[in-house]
């Protein structure tokens, strides 16, 4: 490009800027911009609320799993005695875990739902399987350790499921049914 051509392009650009500034603000542009801004503001605030609520569901689920695993470890490591209270609590905690998991499934990907739901039966087996409820039961250290191991794995999987389900791509795919 020659210096003359460059000078002409520069002048044309300057003229364009001057003419645009003479037009001033278009009220429709202002209204549309404000509406778009407000829409995205509301959307991001709704998404944040939804995400916080899902995170809280996940936290409560993990806490309940931990509570059940701790109680089960105590139960399996204690000498046999009257454990009716612990037994009632453990079966109750299983029901609570099932309920909370159902609630949590609504906010994660279908794949994660499947993985978590496949891990729950193994946890339940560790919590209340074996000689659970038997008056002649003996100390079961393997089951006590297994309850801790499975609860840790499940808690980690729940955290991973949550973080992977809340990427923008995952959200969009879930909303249009292509997750």
């Amino acid at each position: 490009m020659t210096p003359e051509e460059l000078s002409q392009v520069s002048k044309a650009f300057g003229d364009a800027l001057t003419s645009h500034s003479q037009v001033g603000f278009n009220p429709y542009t202002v209204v549309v911009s404000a509406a778009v801004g407000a829409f995205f503001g509301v959307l991001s605030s709704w998404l944040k609320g939804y995400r916080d609520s899902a995170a809280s569901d996940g936290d409560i689920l993990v806490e309940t799993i931990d509570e059940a695993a701790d109680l089960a470890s105590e139960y399996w490591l204690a000498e046999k005695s009257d454990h009716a209270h612990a037994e009632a609590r453990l079966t109750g905690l299983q029901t609570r875990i099932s309920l909370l998991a159902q609630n949590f499934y609504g906010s994660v990907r279908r794949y994660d739902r499947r993985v978590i739901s496949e891990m729950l039966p193994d946890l339940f087996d560790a919590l209340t399987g074996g000689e659970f409820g038997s008056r002649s039961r003996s100390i079961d250290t393997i089951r006590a350790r297994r309850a801790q191991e499975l609860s840790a794995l499940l808690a980690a999987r729940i955290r991973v499921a949550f973080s992977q389900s809340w990427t923008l791509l995952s959200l969009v795919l879930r909303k249009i049914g292509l997750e």
Partner: protein
Amino acid sequence: MGFMVVTLEALALKISVSKDFSRYPGGRFAADGKFSGEEFRDRILVPALKAAKRRSEQVVVNLDDTAGYASSFLEETFGGLVRVRGFSAKELLGGLLRIEAKNPLYAAYKVLAEKYIRDAEPLARAG
């Protein structure tokens, strides 16, 4: 000439744990207290399975609406069919027995019951 459609559903013998046994299933053995897995298996499930086998029907066990299960109850009930009562996992899971959980809250128990049937070994073979 008309055709009669006979579905497996029509030939099923249905058992609901909560309605036909207890809303509060107990532990493994009858000696440990009421509503045990052993009691459910021997008093309700085995007679139903034997009748269903004679008539080429299916037994459907519904797990819904109880206050939850101890896994030991499920193992003694369903694993015990193979381990103690001489049924084979193949015939049970091949159509003689269907375990259902219409309420998703009981889905984990259904998976567990089927797993116990698959994993159980007859006492003689288990030694």
